[in-house]
Protein backbone atom coordinates (compact mmCIF):
# COMPACT_ATOMS: atom_id res chain seq x y z
CA UNK A 1 0.00 0.00 0.00
CA UNK A 2 1.46 3.31 -1.06
CA UNK A 3 1.33 6.19 1.37
CA UNK A 4 -1.30 8.90 0.95
CA UNK A 5 0.13 12.01 -0.66
CA UNK A 6 -0.60 15.65 -0.12
CA UNK A 7 -2.07 17.21 -3.26
CA UNK A 8 -1.02 20.46 -4.94
CA UNK A 9 -2.10 22.61 -7.84
CA UNK A 10 1.13 23.41 -9.68
CA UNK A 11 -0.16 25.25 -12.69
CA UNK A 12 -3.31 26.89 -13.99
CA UNK A 13 -4.52 28.49 -17.16
CA UNK A 14 -7.72 29.50 -18.86
CA UNK A 15 -9.08 31.09 -22.01
CA UNK A 16 -11.12 34.23 -21.97
CA UNK A 17 -14.76 33.34 -21.21
CA UNK A 18 -17.43 34.67 -23.57
CA UNK A 19 -19.16 34.34 -26.91
CA UNK A 20 -16.17 33.09 -28.86
CA UNK A 21 -17.83 32.41 -32.20
CA UNK A 22 -14.60 31.75 -34.06
CA UNK A 23 -13.18 29.22 -31.57
CA UNK A 24 -13.99 25.51 -31.49
CA UNK A 25 -14.40 23.19 -28.50
CA UNK A 26 -11.02 21.58 -29.08
CA UNK A 27 -9.17 24.87 -29.69
CA UNK A 28 -10.43 26.29 -26.43
CA UNK A 29 -9.47 23.19 -24.46
CA UNK A 30 -5.99 23.03 -25.96
CA UNK A 31 -5.35 26.72 -25.31
CA UNK A 32 -6.24 26.38 -21.62
CA UNK A 33 -4.21 23.17 -21.27
CA UNK A 34 -1.12 24.68 -22.84
CA UNK A 35 -1.37 27.73 -20.60
CA UNK A 36 -1.52 25.50 -17.53
CA UNK A 37 1.47 23.46 -18.69
CA UNK A 38 3.46 26.59 -19.42
CA UNK A 39 2.44 28.12 -16.12
CA UNK A 40 3.59 25.02 -14.22
CA UNK A 41 6.81 24.70 -16.20
CA UNK A 42 6.19 21.02 -16.91
CA UNK A 43 5.84 19.12 -20.18
CA UNK A 44 2.48 17.79 -21.29
CA UNK A 45 4.06 14.37 -21.95
CA UNK A 46 4.77 14.18 -18.19
CA UNK A 47 1.03 14.19 -17.46
CA UNK A 48 -0.05 10.70 -16.39
CA UNK A 49 -3.79 11.04 -16.82
CA UNK A 50 -6.13 13.69 -18.22
CA UNK A 51 -9.56 14.32 -16.74
CA UNK A 52 -11.72 16.30 -19.13
CA UNK A 53 -14.68 18.14 -17.66
CA UNK A 54 -17.62 18.88 -19.93
CA UNK A 55 -21.37 19.03 -19.49
CA UNK A 56 -23.24 19.16 -22.79
CA UNK A 57 -20.95 18.64 -25.80
CA UNK A 58 -22.95 15.59 -26.82
CA UNK A 59 -26.11 17.54 -27.50
CA UNK A 60 -24.74 21.04 -28.15
CA UNK A 61 -21.80 20.15 -30.39
CA UNK A 62 -22.74 16.62 -31.40
CA UNK A 63 -19.42 15.47 -29.95
CA UNK A 64 -19.02 12.71 -27.39
CA UNK A 65 -15.79 10.86 -26.57
CA UNK A 66 -14.43 14.10 -25.15
CA UNK A 67 -11.54 12.39 -23.34
CA UNK A 68 -10.13 11.14 -26.62
CA UNK A 69 -10.71 14.47 -28.35
CA UNK A 70 -8.82 16.42 -25.68
CA UNK A 71 -6.02 13.86 -25.46
CA UNK A 72 -5.61 13.78 -29.24
CA UNK A 73 -5.49 17.52 -29.87
CA UNK A 74 -3.39 18.36 -26.83
CA UNK A 75 -0.84 16.00 -28.39
CA UNK A 76 -0.64 13.40 -25.63
CA UNK A 77 -2.44 10.58 -27.44
CA UNK A 78 0.98 10.03 -29.07
CA UNK A 79 2.21 9.12 -25.58
CA UNK A 80 -0.83 6.90 -24.89
CA UNK A 81 -1.71 8.92 -21.79
CA UNK A 82 -5.19 7.91 -20.60
CA UNK A 83 -7.95 10.52 -20.83
CA UNK A 84 -11.44 10.35 -19.38
CA UNK A 85 -14.37 12.75 -19.43
CA UNK A 86 -15.96 13.55 -16.08
CA UNK A 87 -19.59 14.56 -16.38
CA UNK A 88 -21.55 15.80 -13.40
CA UNK A 89 -23.76 18.34 -15.11
CA UNK A 90 -22.80 21.90 -14.21
CA UNK A 91 -20.59 20.53 -11.41
CA UNK A 92 -18.39 18.64 -13.88
CA UNK A 93 -15.40 20.93 -13.24
CA UNK A 94 -15.32 20.49 -9.48
CA UNK A 95 -16.01 16.79 -9.88
CA UNK A 96 -13.08 16.42 -12.30
CA UNK A 97 -10.66 18.20 -9.95
CA UNK A 98 -11.90 15.94 -7.17
CA UNK A 99 -11.06 12.87 -9.29
CA UNK A 100 -7.58 14.30 -9.82
CA UNK A 101 -7.27 14.93 -6.09
CA UNK A 102 -8.24 11.34 -5.27
CA UNK A 103 -5.93 9.91 -7.93
CA UNK A 104 -2.92 11.85 -6.63
CA UNK A 105 -3.76 11.40 -2.97
CA UNK A 106 -3.99 7.64 -3.42
CA UNK A 107 -0.45 7.53 -4.76
CA UNK A 108 -1.52 6.19 -8.16
CA UNK A 109 -0.43 9.29 -10.10
CA UNK A 110 2.06 12.11 -9.54
CA UNK A 111 0.86 14.56 -12.21
CA UNK A 112 -2.70 14.90 -13.45
CA UNK A 113 -4.19 17.38 -15.89
CA UNK A 114 -7.75 18.59 -15.44
CA UNK A 115 -9.21 20.42 -18.42
CA UNK A 116 -12.73 21.81 -18.41
CA UNK A 117 -14.37 23.09 -21.57
CA UNK A 118 -17.76 24.11 -22.91
CA UNK A 119 -18.69 25.46 -26.33
CA UNK A 120 -22.26 26.70 -25.89
CA UNK A 121 -22.65 29.19 -28.73
CA UNK A 122 -22.96 26.52 -31.43
CA UNK A 123 -26.68 26.57 -30.55
CA UNK A 124 -28.74 29.57 -29.43
CA UNK A 125 -32.13 30.86 -28.33
CA UNK A 126 -35.01 28.60 -27.37
CA UNK A 127 -33.13 25.57 -28.71
CA UNK A 128 -30.24 26.13 -26.29
CA UNK A 129 -32.68 26.61 -23.40
CA UNK A 130 -34.17 23.21 -24.24
CA UNK A 131 -30.71 21.59 -24.28
CA UNK A 132 -29.52 23.18 -21.03
CA UNK A 133 -32.78 21.99 -19.44
CA UNK A 134 -31.46 18.44 -19.84
CA UNK A 135 -29.58 18.89 -16.54
CA UNK A 136 -33.06 18.78 -14.93
CA UNK A 137 -35.33 15.73 -14.78
CA UNK A 138 -36.35 15.65 -18.44
CA UNK A 139 -39.51 13.62 -17.92
CA UNK A 140 -40.88 15.23 -14.77
CA UNK A 141 -39.54 18.81 -14.86
CA UNK A 142 -38.42 19.90 -18.34
CA UNK A 143 -41.29 18.00 -19.98
CA UNK A 144 -43.73 20.39 -18.31
CA UNK A 145 -41.83 23.55 -19.26
CA UNK A 146 -39.27 23.82 -16.46
CA UNK A 147 -35.92 25.39 -17.30
CA UNK A 148 -32.94 25.99 -14.99
CA UNK A 149 -33.93 29.66 -14.75
CA UNK A 150 -37.60 28.84 -14.05
CA UNK A 151 -36.73 26.54 -11.16
CA UNK A 152 -34.28 29.08 -9.72
CA UNK A 153 -37.13 31.59 -9.94
CA UNK A 154 -39.47 29.23 -8.09
CA UNK A 155 -36.87 28.96 -5.33
CA UNK A 156 -36.43 32.73 -5.34
CA UNK A 157 -40.13 33.54 -4.95
CA UNK A 158 -40.55 31.16 -2.02
CA UNK A 159 -37.33 32.37 -0.39
CA UNK A 160 -38.29 36.03 -0.72
CA UNK A 161 -41.76 35.34 0.68
CA UNK A 162 -40.66 33.24 3.66
CA UNK A 163 -37.76 35.46 4.75
CA UNK A 164 -39.18 38.82 3.69
CA UNK A 165 -36.25 39.46 1.35
CA UNK A 166 -36.50 42.18 -1.30
CA UNK A 167 -35.30 41.76 -4.85
CA UNK A 168 -32.45 44.22 -4.12
CA UNK A 169 -30.64 41.61 -2.07
CA UNK A 170 -30.60 39.18 -4.99
CA UNK A 171 -29.48 41.86 -7.42
CA UNK A 172 -26.54 42.76 -5.18
CA UNK A 173 -24.96 39.37 -5.96
CA UNK A 174 -24.85 40.38 -9.63
CA UNK A 175 -23.63 43.89 -8.82
CA UNK A 176 -20.75 42.36 -6.84
CA UNK A 177 -19.91 39.85 -9.59
CA UNK A 178 -19.75 42.60 -12.21
CA UNK A 179 -17.63 44.85 -9.99
CA UNK A 180 -15.08 42.06 -9.55
CA UNK A 181 -15.19 40.93 -13.17
CA UNK A 182 -14.32 44.46 -14.25
CA UNK A 183 -10.87 43.64 -12.84
CA UNK A 184 -10.56 40.21 -14.47
CA UNK A 185 -9.14 40.16 -18.02
CA UNK A 186 -10.57 36.65 -18.59
CA UNK A 187 -14.14 37.65 -17.69
CA UNK A 188 -17.05 37.59 -20.14
CA UNK A 189 -18.34 40.95 -18.87
CA UNK A 190 -16.08 43.74 -17.71
CA UNK A 191 -18.77 46.36 -17.20
CA UNK A 192 -19.80 47.35 -13.71
CA UNK A 193 -23.54 47.49 -13.18
CA UNK A 194 -25.64 49.51 -10.78
CA UNK A 195 -28.39 48.14 -8.57
CA UNK A 196 -30.88 50.01 -10.77
CA UNK A 197 -29.58 48.31 -13.91
CA UNK A 198 -29.68 44.93 -12.23
CA UNK A 199 -33.28 45.45 -11.13
CA UNK A 200 -34.55 46.82 -14.43
CA UNK A 201 -33.31 44.29 -16.97
CA UNK A 202 -35.71 42.16 -19.02
CA UNK A 203 -37.67 39.36 -17.31
CA UNK A 204 -36.41 35.79 -17.79
CA UNK A 205 -38.53 33.90 -15.25
CA UNK A 206 -40.22 36.14 -12.68
CA UNK A 207 -38.94 37.33 -10.26
CA UNK A 208 -35.59 36.73 -11.97
CA UNK A 209 -34.47 38.88 -14.87
CA UNK A 210 -31.50 38.88 -17.19
CA UNK A 211 -29.16 40.38 -14.60
CA UNK A 212 -29.96 37.55 -12.18
CA UNK A 213 -28.82 34.89 -14.66
CA UNK A 214 -25.36 33.76 -15.68
CA UNK A 215 -24.81 34.22 -19.41
CA UNK A 216 -24.36 31.72 -22.21
CA UNK A 217 -20.69 31.48 -23.07
CA UNK A 218 -17.72 29.49 -24.26
CA UNK A 219 -14.47 28.88 -22.48
CA UNK A 220 -11.94 26.47 -21.09
CA UNK A 221 -9.86 26.22 -17.93
CA UNK A 222 -7.13 23.82 -16.88
CA UNK A 223 -5.13 22.99 -13.78
CA UNK A 224 -2.25 20.61 -13.13
CA UNK A 225 -2.53 18.61 -9.95
CA UNK A 226 0.61 17.04 -8.50
CA UNK A 227 1.80 14.92 -5.61
CA UNK A 228 4.06 16.08 -2.80
CA UNK A 229 6.90 13.99 -4.24
CA UNK A 230 6.53 15.58 -7.64
CA UNK A 231 6.47 19.08 -6.18
CA UNK A 232 9.63 18.42 -4.15
CA UNK A 233 11.48 16.66 -6.94
CA UNK A 234 10.83 19.44 -9.46
CA UNK A 235 11.07 22.26 -6.91
CA UNK A 236 7.62 23.59 -7.82
CA UNK A 237 5.66 26.07 -5.75
CA UNK A 238 2.20 24.63 -5.55
CA UNK A 239 -0.98 25.61 -3.81
CA UNK A 240 -2.30 22.83 -1.63
CA UNK A 241 -5.73 21.28 -2.05
CA UNK A 242 -6.47 20.80 1.64
CA UNK A 243 -9.73 18.94 1.25
CA UNK A 244 -12.28 17.80 -1.29
CA UNK A 245 -15.87 16.75 -0.72
CA UNK A 246 -18.99 16.14 -2.74
CA UNK A 247 -22.59 15.38 -1.93
CA UNK A 248 -25.76 14.58 -3.79
CA UNK A 249 -29.41 15.53 -3.40
CA UNK A 250 -32.55 14.56 -5.31
CA UNK A 251 -32.39 15.35 -9.03
CA UNK A 252 -35.69 17.23 -9.17
CA UNK A 253 -36.33 20.34 -7.09
CA UNK A 254 -39.88 19.14 -6.32
CA UNK A 255 -38.48 16.04 -4.58
CA UNK A 256 -36.28 17.96 -2.12
CA UNK A 257 -37.20 18.80 1.46
CA UNK A 258 -37.03 22.55 0.84
CA UNK A 259 -37.23 24.79 -2.21
CA UNK A 260 -34.41 27.00 -0.92
CA UNK A 261 -32.11 24.76 1.08
CA UNK A 262 -29.22 23.14 -0.76
CA UNK A 263 -28.55 20.00 1.26
CA UNK A 264 -25.78 19.03 -1.17
CA UNK A 265 -23.96 22.28 -0.38
CA UNK A 266 -24.51 21.88 3.36
CA UNK A 267 -23.11 18.36 3.48
CA UNK A 268 -20.19 18.97 1.11
CA UNK A 269 -19.08 22.19 2.83
CA UNK A 270 -19.23 20.60 6.27
CA UNK A 271 -17.12 17.67 5.07
CA UNK A 272 -14.66 19.96 3.30
CA UNK A 273 -14.17 22.17 6.37
CA UNK A 274 -13.68 19.09 8.55
CA UNK A 275 -11.21 17.66 6.04
CA UNK A 276 -9.20 20.88 6.00
CA UNK A 277 -9.45 21.17 9.80
CA UNK A 278 -10.60 24.77 9.57
CA UNK A 279 -13.74 26.70 10.51
CA UNK A 280 -15.93 28.71 8.18
CA UNK A 281 -14.57 31.91 9.77
CA UNK A 282 -11.07 30.93 8.63
CA UNK A 283 -12.07 31.09 4.95
CA UNK A 284 -10.46 34.14 3.32
CA UNK A 285 -12.65 34.20 0.21
CA UNK A 286 -15.01 31.92 -1.67
CA UNK A 287 -15.91 31.23 -5.26
CA UNK A 288 -19.54 30.09 -5.23
CA UNK A 289 -21.83 28.70 -7.91
CA UNK A 290 -24.15 31.66 -8.41
CA UNK A 291 -25.52 30.62 -11.79
CA UNK A 292 -28.62 32.52 -10.63
CA UNK A 293 -28.48 35.34 -8.09
CA UNK A 294 -30.81 33.51 -5.69
CA UNK A 295 -28.37 30.60 -5.55
CA UNK A 296 -25.71 33.04 -4.34
CA UNK A 297 -27.84 33.84 -1.29
CA UNK A 298 -28.86 30.23 -0.67
CA UNK A 299 -25.22 29.14 -0.93
CA UNK A 300 -23.95 31.84 1.44
CA UNK A 301 -26.31 30.26 3.94
CA UNK A 302 -25.88 26.57 3.19
CA UNK A 303 -22.09 26.76 2.86
CA UNK A 304 -22.11 28.26 6.35
CA UNK A 305 -21.42 31.99 5.93
CA UNK A 306 -24.89 33.05 7.15
CA UNK A 307 -27.93 31.65 8.94
CA UNK A 308 -30.89 30.62 6.76
CA UNK A 309 -32.68 33.69 5.46
CA UNK A 310 -29.88 36.03 6.57
CA UNK A 311 -27.63 36.23 3.51
CA UNK A 312 -29.26 39.59 2.84
CA UNK A 313 -27.12 40.95 5.69
CA UNK A 314 -23.93 40.07 3.78
CA UNK A 315 -24.66 41.08 0.20
CA UNK A 316 -24.41 44.86 0.50
CA UNK A 317 -20.94 45.15 2.06
CA UNK A 318 -19.38 41.95 3.44
CA UNK A 319 -19.07 40.10 0.11
CA UNK A 320 -17.17 42.91 -1.64
CA UNK A 321 -13.56 42.42 -2.67
CA UNK A 322 -12.38 44.36 0.38
CA UNK A 323 -15.23 43.15 2.60
CA UNK A 324 -15.30 40.71 5.51
CA UNK A 325 -15.73 37.63 3.28
CA UNK A 326 -15.04 38.42 -0.38
CA UNK A 327 -17.30 36.37 -2.65
CA UNK A 328 -16.39 35.58 -6.25
CA UNK A 329 -13.30 37.76 -6.68
CA UNK A 330 -13.15 36.31 -10.21
CA UNK A 331 -16.49 37.86 -11.14
CA UNK A 332 -18.45 34.69 -10.46
CA UNK A 333 -20.78 32.88 -12.78
CA UNK A 334 -22.78 36.00 -13.57
CA UNK A 335 -19.90 38.11 -14.86
CA UNK A 336 -16.74 36.05 -15.26
CA UNK A 337 -19.08 33.66 -17.03
CA UNK A 338 -20.47 30.15 -16.86
CA UNK A 339 -19.21 27.89 -19.65
CA UNK A 340 -20.57 24.86 -17.79
CA UNK A 341 -17.75 22.29 -17.93
CA UNK A 342 -15.10 25.01 -17.56
CA UNK A 343 -16.76 26.87 -14.68
CA UNK A 344 -15.66 24.67 -11.79
CA UNK A 345 -12.09 24.34 -13.09
CA UNK A 346 -11.99 28.10 -13.59
CA UNK A 347 -12.68 28.50 -9.86
CA UNK A 348 -9.37 26.72 -9.21
CA UNK A 349 -7.57 28.97 -11.68
CA UNK A 350 -8.82 31.95 -9.68
CA UNK A 351 -7.91 30.39 -6.33
CA UNK A 352 -4.43 29.49 -7.57
CA UNK A 353 -3.81 33.05 -8.75
CA UNK A 354 -5.26 34.60 -5.59
CA UNK A 355 -3.33 32.37 -3.21
CA UNK A 356 -0.09 33.01 -5.07
CA UNK A 357 -0.75 36.75 -4.83
CA UNK A 358 -1.01 37.07 -8.61
CA UNK A 359 -4.61 38.20 -9.03
CA UNK A 360 -3.67 41.76 -9.97
CA UNK A 361 -6.25 44.46 -9.34
CA UNK A 362 -8.70 42.01 -7.79
CA UNK A 363 -6.22 40.53 -5.32
CA UNK A 364 -7.85 39.61 -2.00
CA UNK A 365 -5.62 40.88 0.79
CA UNK A 366 -3.94 38.36 3.13
CA UNK A 367 -5.78 35.42 1.70
CA UNK A 368 -4.96 32.04 3.18
CA UNK A 369 -7.88 29.70 2.60
CA UNK A 370 -10.23 29.61 -0.39
CA UNK A 371 -13.53 27.73 -0.47
CA UNK A 372 -14.66 26.66 -3.93
CA UNK A 373 -18.23 25.53 -4.54
CA UNK A 374 -19.40 24.05 -7.84
CA UNK A 375 -23.01 22.89 -8.15
CA UNK A 376 -24.86 20.58 -10.51
CA UNK A 377 -28.36 21.25 -11.81
CA UNK A 378 -30.61 23.04 -9.34
CA UNK A 379 -28.58 21.66 -6.42
CA UNK A 380 -28.57 17.94 -7.17
CA UNK A 381 -24.82 17.93 -6.57
CA UNK A 382 -22.29 20.10 -4.82
CA UNK A 383 -18.53 19.78 -4.87
CA UNK A 384 -16.60 21.82 -2.29
CA UNK A 385 -12.84 22.20 -2.03
CA UNK A 386 -10.67 24.06 0.44
CA UNK A 387 -7.45 25.31 -1.12
CA UNK A 388 -4.43 27.08 0.38
CA UNK A 389 -3.20 27.14 3.92
CA UNK A 390 0.56 27.56 3.72
Amino acid at each position, binding site marked *: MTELSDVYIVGAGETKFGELWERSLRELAVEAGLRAVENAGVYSRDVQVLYGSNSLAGIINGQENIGALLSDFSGIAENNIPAIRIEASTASGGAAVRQAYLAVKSGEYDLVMVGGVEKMTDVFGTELIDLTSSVLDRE*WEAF*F*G*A*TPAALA*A*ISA*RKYMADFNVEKDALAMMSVNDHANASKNPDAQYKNKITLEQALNSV*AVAEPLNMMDCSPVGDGAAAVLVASENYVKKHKLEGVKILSSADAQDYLALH*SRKSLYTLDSAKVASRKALEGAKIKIDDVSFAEIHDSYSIYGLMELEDLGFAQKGKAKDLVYEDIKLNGRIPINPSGGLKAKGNPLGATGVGQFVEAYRQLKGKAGERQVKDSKYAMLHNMGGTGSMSVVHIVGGE
Partner: protein
Amino acid sequence: MGEVSRFWRESVHRYRLVAHKCGNCQRTYFPPRDVCPICHRESVGKMKEVEMSGKGVIESFTVVHEVPSPFVRQRPYILAIVKLDEGPSLTAQIVDADPGEVEIGKRVSAVFRKIAQQGSAGIIQYGYKFILD
Protein backbone atom coordinates in the same frame (compact mmCIF):
# COMPACT_ATOMS: atom_id res chain seq x y z
CA MET B 1 -38.32 6.26 -32.78
CA GLY B 2 -36.70 7.14 -29.46
CA GLU B 3 -38.33 10.51 -28.87
CA VAL B 4 -41.78 9.03 -29.08
CA SER B 5 -41.18 6.06 -26.81
CA ARG B 6 -39.29 8.19 -24.30
CA PHE B 7 -42.32 10.34 -23.63
CA TRP B 8 -44.93 7.66 -24.17
CA ARG B 9 -43.47 5.39 -21.50
CA GLU B 10 -44.62 7.56 -18.58
CA SER B 11 -47.91 8.59 -20.11
CA VAL B 12 -50.11 6.49 -17.80
CA HIS B 13 -48.60 8.16 -14.73
CA ARG B 14 -49.01 11.57 -16.35
CA TYR B 15 -52.56 11.01 -17.55
CA ARG B 16 -53.99 9.68 -14.29
CA LEU B 17 -51.50 11.05 -11.73
CA VAL B 18 -50.52 7.56 -10.61
CA ALA B 19 -48.04 7.58 -7.73
CA HIS B 20 -46.20 4.81 -5.93
CA LYS B 21 -46.90 4.12 -2.26
CA CYS B 22 -44.29 2.28 -0.21
CA GLY B 23 -45.80 -0.82 1.42
CA ASN B 24 -43.18 -0.64 4.15
CA CYS B 25 -43.47 2.98 5.42
CA GLN B 26 -46.67 4.07 3.60
CA ARG B 27 -45.05 7.18 2.10
CA THR B 28 -46.37 8.20 -1.33
CA TYR B 29 -44.02 9.14 -4.15
CA PHE B 30 -44.70 11.09 -7.30
CA PRO B 31 -43.12 10.80 -9.81
CA PRO B 32 -43.35 7.06 -9.15
CA ARG B 33 -40.18 5.30 -8.04
CA ASP B 34 -39.34 1.63 -7.65
CA VAL B 35 -37.23 2.04 -4.52
CA CYS B 36 -38.34 3.97 -1.42
CA PRO B 37 -35.50 6.35 -0.45
CA ILE B 38 -36.29 5.77 3.22
CA CYS B 39 -36.76 1.99 3.25
CA HIS B 40 -34.35 1.02 0.44
CA ARG B 41 -34.24 -2.81 0.15
CA GLU B 42 -37.24 -3.30 2.43
CA SER B 43 -39.41 -1.52 -0.16
CA VAL B 44 -38.49 -3.63 -3.16
CA GLY B 45 -41.57 -5.22 -4.64
CA LYS B 46 -43.79 -3.31 -2.19
CA MET B 47 -44.25 -0.06 -4.16
CA LYS B 48 -47.98 -0.03 -5.01
CA GLU B 49 -49.65 2.15 -7.62
CA VAL B 50 -52.11 4.67 -6.20
CA GLU B 51 -54.12 7.26 -8.12
CA MET B 52 -53.99 10.74 -6.63
CA SER B 53 -56.83 13.23 -6.28
CA GLY B 54 -55.14 15.98 -8.31
CA LYS B 55 -55.86 18.46 -5.51
CA GLY B 56 -53.12 20.51 -3.97
CA VAL B 57 -51.57 23.84 -3.00
CA ILE B 58 -49.15 26.13 -4.86
CA GLU B 59 -45.80 26.01 -3.04
CA SER B 60 -44.19 28.56 -5.36
CA PHE B 61 -44.39 29.68 -8.98
CA THR B 62 -42.79 31.72 -11.74
CA VAL B 63 -43.84 33.30 -15.00
CA VAL B 64 -41.49 31.95 -17.67
CA HIS B 65 -40.55 34.42 -20.41
CA GLU B 66 -37.43 32.76 -21.83
CA VAL B 67 -38.82 29.41 -22.89
CA PRO B 68 -37.44 26.21 -24.40
CA SER B 69 -38.29 25.45 -28.03
CA PRO B 70 -41.25 23.07 -27.42
CA PHE B 71 -43.05 25.86 -25.50
CA VAL B 72 -42.59 28.83 -27.83
CA ARG B 73 -46.31 29.12 -28.60
CA GLN B 74 -47.22 29.27 -24.90
CA ARG B 75 -44.87 32.10 -23.95
CA PRO B 76 -45.18 33.43 -21.30
CA TYR B 77 -46.52 30.66 -19.08
CA ILE B 78 -46.91 30.10 -15.36
CA LEU B 79 -44.89 27.23 -13.91
CA ALA B 80 -45.40 26.07 -10.33
CA ILE B 81 -44.40 23.48 -7.81
CA VAL B 82 -47.65 22.09 -6.41
CA LYS B 83 -47.84 20.13 -3.18
CA LEU B 84 -50.51 17.48 -3.61
CA ASP B 85 -52.84 16.60 -0.74
CA GLU B 86 -51.42 13.05 -0.72
CA GLY B 87 -47.95 14.44 0.13
CA PRO B 88 -45.71 14.57 -2.95
CA SER B 89 -44.89 17.76 -4.86
CA LEU B 90 -44.68 18.06 -8.63
CA THR B 91 -43.77 20.61 -11.29
CA ALA B 92 -46.56 21.76 -13.62
CA GLN B 93 -48.07 24.74 -15.38
CA ILE B 94 -50.92 26.80 -13.95
CA VAL B 95 -53.39 27.64 -16.74
CA ASP B 96 -56.59 29.64 -17.28
CA ALA B 97 -55.33 32.26 -14.82
CA ASP B 98 -53.68 35.68 -14.98
CA PRO B 99 -50.27 35.80 -13.28
CA GLY B 100 -51.76 38.40 -10.93
CA GLU B 101 -54.28 35.89 -9.59
CA VAL B 102 -51.69 33.24 -8.77
CA GLU B 103 -50.34 33.20 -5.22
CA ILE B 104 -48.32 30.92 -3.00
CA GLY B 105 -50.76 28.89 -0.88
CA LYS B 106 -53.70 28.98 -3.30
CA ARG B 107 -55.49 25.68 -3.90
CA VAL B 108 -55.39 24.13 -7.35
CA SER B 109 -56.79 21.11 -9.21
CA ALA B 110 -55.29 19.04 -12.00
CA VAL B 111 -56.70 19.16 -15.52
CA PHE B 112 -55.71 17.12 -18.55
CA ARG B 113 -54.19 19.28 -21.30
CA LYS B 114 -51.80 19.45 -24.21
CA ILE B 115 -48.31 20.08 -22.80
CA ALA B 116 -46.12 20.85 -25.80
CA GLN B 117 -44.87 19.81 -29.17
CA GLN B 118 -41.82 17.72 -28.43
CA GLY B 119 -38.82 17.08 -30.61
CA SER B 120 -38.18 17.26 -34.30
CA ALA B 121 -41.12 14.95 -35.04
CA GLY B 122 -43.47 17.58 -33.56
CA ILE B 123 -45.28 14.98 -31.48
CA ILE B 124 -48.00 16.58 -29.37
CA GLN B 125 -47.73 15.45 -25.76
CA TYR B 126 -50.47 15.48 -23.16
CA GLY B 127 -50.37 15.53 -19.39
CA TYR B 128 -51.45 17.44 -16.28
CA LYS B 129 -51.69 21.17 -15.79
CA PHE B 130 -53.42 22.89 -12.87
CA ILE B 131 -56.21 25.46 -12.55
CA LEU B 132 -57.03 27.65 -9.56
CA ASP B 133 -59.94 26.35 -7.43
